């Protein structure tokens, strides 16, 4: 419940008013703060419209996304993933399923600056299957709200994004999510040569929030995974995985991120369960870094014990874990195939997994070739 509304003329003034006013919140798109979850909480809204950056800019080293960029603008900057028939081919009739399943990473040459990163983020943003909301919801708001189903967070975690905060401080996504609140001015993603990425999610319906979502970014060195990041919502690292000594630094961060649910009162209206928030799956990363990728079924088997999940109305814990392991395998192989494609252009080898391509479009079996009919 908003009881007051002010629209300052500068960021400095906005920060000052917010500091001085009890129950003050920054408001941009408003799709989170005006939702029923906040209806009984008195808030003074400090509008930041026009006060923070909105541009999406890429240099050779850095992709910078203004906090006020809308999710729709992010979708469009990602090559119009939700709309571009060329990128997603004839998917399920009129569905963004294909966009969600599409593989980020511009195969071949002439990739625009930050093409890989923007494509991944575009897929993540398009997973909010509601254009009306994407037209208002902002990148900064999506990160700051830190909802358990946040659509951008897995991708931002996988891309080692850092957040430029008001006052000039920079924080990693994981650090921010562990204690959100500070005003975000921009999201910055250092660009890495040879990086490829993929986003996968499972939801009951296309318009539903994700029950599980996974983003993978990686670099290959030959057929070996040189570096990999796995960001996820809907699952967390299993407690045992953290203590198994794999990727200890990352694991701590992941655990912290998973535990951090954001400020009190933030969450979905009806789901009483404490779903894990977005986090990196360090144990999963550690499993693959420095080695060649396994086949799909082997990845799933290896990953499953490292995951933990909670049951809610969307899925049982068991199903969530199963799907998360599958989505991780799919995203890893899809990203690896892309990375190999990039390297292939320069004479590298492609991992030989027969299923590497089969995760392209979970929504549509037609995607990978003509259906065959035979008389039974």
């Amino acid at each position, binding site marked *: 419940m*908003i*009881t*007051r*509304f002010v*629209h300052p003329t500068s960021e400095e003034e906005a920060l000052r008013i917010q500091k001085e006013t009890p129950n003050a919140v920054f*408001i941009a798109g*408003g*799709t989170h703060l*005006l*939702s*029923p979850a906040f209806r009984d909480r008195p808030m003074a*809204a400090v509008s930041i419209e026009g006060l923070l950056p909105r541009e999406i800019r890429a240099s050779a080293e850095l992709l910078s996304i203004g906090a006020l960029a809308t999710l729709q603008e992010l979708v469009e900057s990602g090559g119009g993933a*939700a*709309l571009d*028939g060329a990128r*997603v081919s004839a998917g*399920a*009739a*009129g*569905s*963004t*399923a294909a966009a969600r399943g599409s593989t980020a990473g511009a195969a071949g040459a002439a990739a625009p600056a930050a093409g890989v990163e923007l494509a991944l983020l575009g897929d993540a943003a398009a997973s909010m*299957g*509601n*254009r*009306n*909301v994407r*037209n*208002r919801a902002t990148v900064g708001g999506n990160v700051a709200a830190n909802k358990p189903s946040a659509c951008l967070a897995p991708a931002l975690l996988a891309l080692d994004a850092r957040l430029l905060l008001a006052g000039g401080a920079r924080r990693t996504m994981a650090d921010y999510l562990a204690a959100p609140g500070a005003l975000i001015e921009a999201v910055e993603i250092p660009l890495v040569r040879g990086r490829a990425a993929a986003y996968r999610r*499972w939801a*009951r*319906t*296309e*318009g*539903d929030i994700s029950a599980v979502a996974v983003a993978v970014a990686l670099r290959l060195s030959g057929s070996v995974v040189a570096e990999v990041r796995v960001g996820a919502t809907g699952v967390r690292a299993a407690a045992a995985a953290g203590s198994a000594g794999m990727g200890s630094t990352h694991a701590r961060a992941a655990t912290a991120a998973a535990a951090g649910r954001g400020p009190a009162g933030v969450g*979905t209206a*009806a789901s*009483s369960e404490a779903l894990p928030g977005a986090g990196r799956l360090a144990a999963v990363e550690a499993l693959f870094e420095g080695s060649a990728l396994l086949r799909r079924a082997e990845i799933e088997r290896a990953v499953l014990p490292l995951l933990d999940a909670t049951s809610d*109305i969307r*899925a*049982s814990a*068991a*199903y969530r874990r*199963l*799907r998360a392991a*599958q989505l991780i395998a799919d995203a890893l192989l899809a990203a690896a195939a892309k990375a190999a494609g990039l390297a292939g252009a320069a004479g590298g080898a492609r991992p030989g997994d027969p299923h590497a391509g*089969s995760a392209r479009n*979970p*929504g*549509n*079996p*037609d995607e*990978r*070739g*003509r*259906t*065959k009919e*035979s*008389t*039974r």
Partner: protein
Amino acid sequence: MNVSFTLNGRPVTWECAEGETLHSLLRRLGHLPMRNACDGEGTCGLCSVIFDRKTVNSCMILAAQADGHEISTVAHFSKERSLSIVQRALLDVGAVQCGYCTPSVVLALHALLDRSSEPGDREITDALSGILCRCTGYKQFYAAAHLAARRLKEPSYTEAAAPEFRKELRHVGKVREKVDARSLVRGERAYVEDRVEPDACILMMLGSPHAHAIVKRIDVSKARAVPGVVEILTYENCPDAVYCSAGQGFPEPSPYDRRMFSRRVRHVGDRVAAVMAENREAAKAALAAIEVDYEPLPPVLSVDEAAAPSAPIIHSGEVRYVTGTPPAGSSTAGDGQDDPIIYQFPIGADPHRNLAASAAGAVGDVERGFAEADVTIEREYTATQVHTTPMEPHVVYTRIEGERLVIHASTQVSWHLRRIVARVLGIPENKIHVIKERVGGGFGAKQDIVLEEVAAYLTWKTGRSVYYRLSRTEEFVASRTRHPMKIAVKLGAKRDGRLTAIEMRVRANTGPYGQHALTVPMNACSKTLPLLPCPNVHYDIKTYYTNTPVAGAYQGYGATQGSFALMTALAELAKKLELDPLAMIEKNRVRVGDRLDILSSLGEGRPGQALTIEQCSLGEAIEAGRRDLRWGTRVESGDPDWKIGRGAAIIQQGSGLPGIDLANAEIKLLTDGTFFLMSGGADIGTGLDTVTVKVAAEVLCVDMQAVAVISGDTETTPFDKGAYASSGTFYSGNAALIAARNLKMRLIEVGAALLAERPSDCEIFYPGVVRGKKGSISYADIALRSTSGDGSGELQAVGTFTTLHSAIPYGAHFVEAAVNVRSGEVKLRKYYAYQDSGTPINPDLALGQIYGAVVKSVGHSLYEEMVLDEKGRCRNPNFQDYRVPSVFEVPQDLRATLIPTIDPVGPFGGKSISEVSMNGAAPAIAAAIHDAVGAWVRVWPFTAERVLEAMGVLAAAGSTTKEDKRDTE
């Protein structure tokens, strides 16, 4: 604070509260077409506006945030009541049904055309992704978008929106503009919420937090002291009458088992107290100030729990019968602690054992039939609780006009509503005027009196107007849902597939009150067994009270659950016999000339009518599906993860209740030769007003514009049973037809007299002329002369329709599904519906009804489910968590085909259309899943998780029943 923005091209400056949403401000200032179906959750999109050229939800923007921006509502596109290119296209393709979402669709498509003049399907999907519609199945929105885009380049372009039927007729069977669509597509005043005056009081309900409890103490003194509170009702001061909320014909086959408020609360959200206040804030404060001490009782949450010998008893009051004697062995003496229960006649109930109704019947000898069988199977199917979710929730506005109570209602049953309110209030029906407004989706939920009587009583008591609208959460937990059922089916057959015996045992959950308790589960048998005439059939239904959300009527009315069970069992039997499932259907299906004796025992609490089938186009429907789907070929996806399978089911419904229902219409000739039709029928978005106008214009040989209609108004139109049991076209349509025929006779009589000719020498001709042997006279001249001083009086006629004839609409639904063997996900590649609805009177609207029913039933089959916790609380009472199909979920290739027949009794051969199409999805999809991956899922919805479980991949929730060990071979 003041806010300035551009609204529909004009600058405005308005005062608003700092926290007020743009939606609230616009509506407050009379810009009404921004609706609301999700209470500001952002999931329905019905409050859309165009904000700086982009569609956004106006409920998720503060009015203050609009400052300096450009905002357009649907009014921007229909200046001076003209129609925009998008509005015109939506009308032309027949995409307007209840109209509640239509203004938002108009905006979304305009914004789309603004950025893409030749949008593809994918862009259209994306444009509509934020808007929920429960009526249309979204399919025709694509056609409208393409048509509008085409007309941007070629303004005069037209195309057929649907095939047309009956060449010899002028209007019937032809694509014509839906008579209320212009007003709806412009977003004009139409719904209950548009009638509310600024001084209306608000009614809010305190719902029980317990599934089952006794109110030990309730103290409303603090609440009464809240400034602005006008009245508070509890069980202590409400009318002392028990009644039934079902809008069924009197005497109802349902118990009178509820009081307006009771000391006993029987489900989470059950009424505890109503607050009437001058504003919402006061009402909320008063709700919070009511003190209640509950004595919680153990809740009964399933049929199995309800039937257990030691089950807590949900109704313990005295049981009385108006006629007939109590069922043998049933308990009638009350414990003095609960309200009485009155049955109009026995329906096999024993409420003190939680049994709300029961029935059983048979033809032939099932024991012998099973003994003759080469193979028998026994299976149990579970239909979980799904919700009707009309986009407009239950809503009512009541006020006093003179000495009378006016009820602006969103109802399917104006006359039953009047009768029930009169009973509860203890006033004569002539003191009550029910005005059926446009209904923003009914689907059966608005066949029940869910909230009207409380508002009506408070208005009658205080003299002040009352506005009462359920929140979306209340709509989920305290309106009406589909009866959950467990249905056991036993089938016996010969090796060649011929059925020798069928047994159906239905266990239904009515929730805490027994509206439709007998008839919904009865329909599970009476609208399925006649599809498979078999010499030996036995059925047995029992409906139990539980403390779960209230069940009621829902499009399909039990036939949907029964069809899932019986048709899936038939497919399972075919598999066991290694027969093609379609051949199995062919071998056993109903045919012309079959006599359906089973129907004589399957009435609505009274004897039914046996029937000999005179026409049935199932054979054509099955052949069409076989051909179009290339049945018998196997389809491979090219991806080892996705397996493709096919399934089919045949389905039926009824067209009203023969011998029980009745409809009336009146029509009169106005002095310019046009007509005014007063139909009792309740158009709830289905196109019924268009049906009545069409048949009247057809009979009277005039253009449809020459007939204006009002309907469903208890003061100005004659009695009609209401819109339920698929009776609209058949009953209300026929009443209009008979009224028009009677008026035609008057026109000929009076015209002949004026022409000085014999009536037998006169006939009527288009466009409105009576012609004899010597001369002719126009309707206008007849009207003017008959209303002058030497005239014979205004020409009027009445039509009354009732029948013992059963007009059965048939259909065959075919599905091609892809099932993912890793994830269990099911995607529908093809959904082909073949439907016999007699003469399709409104072919474009009939297609829309089929698309809508199919998409809805696909939702029920794949993901919709109300989830209750161990205390009976619904965990997903909102659109974020209870997903209804969005535009993404339309099957990839969705087709509906009308296969016409001519019913001998229906208006111009018409039969019903809307309900029957609900019945095919579950069994056809279940069969397709099995065809794809070899697993039977016997619990709907077939979620990805349940599919994996059935495949044996995931061991969890135990939600499929094991193959019965008693199968014999």
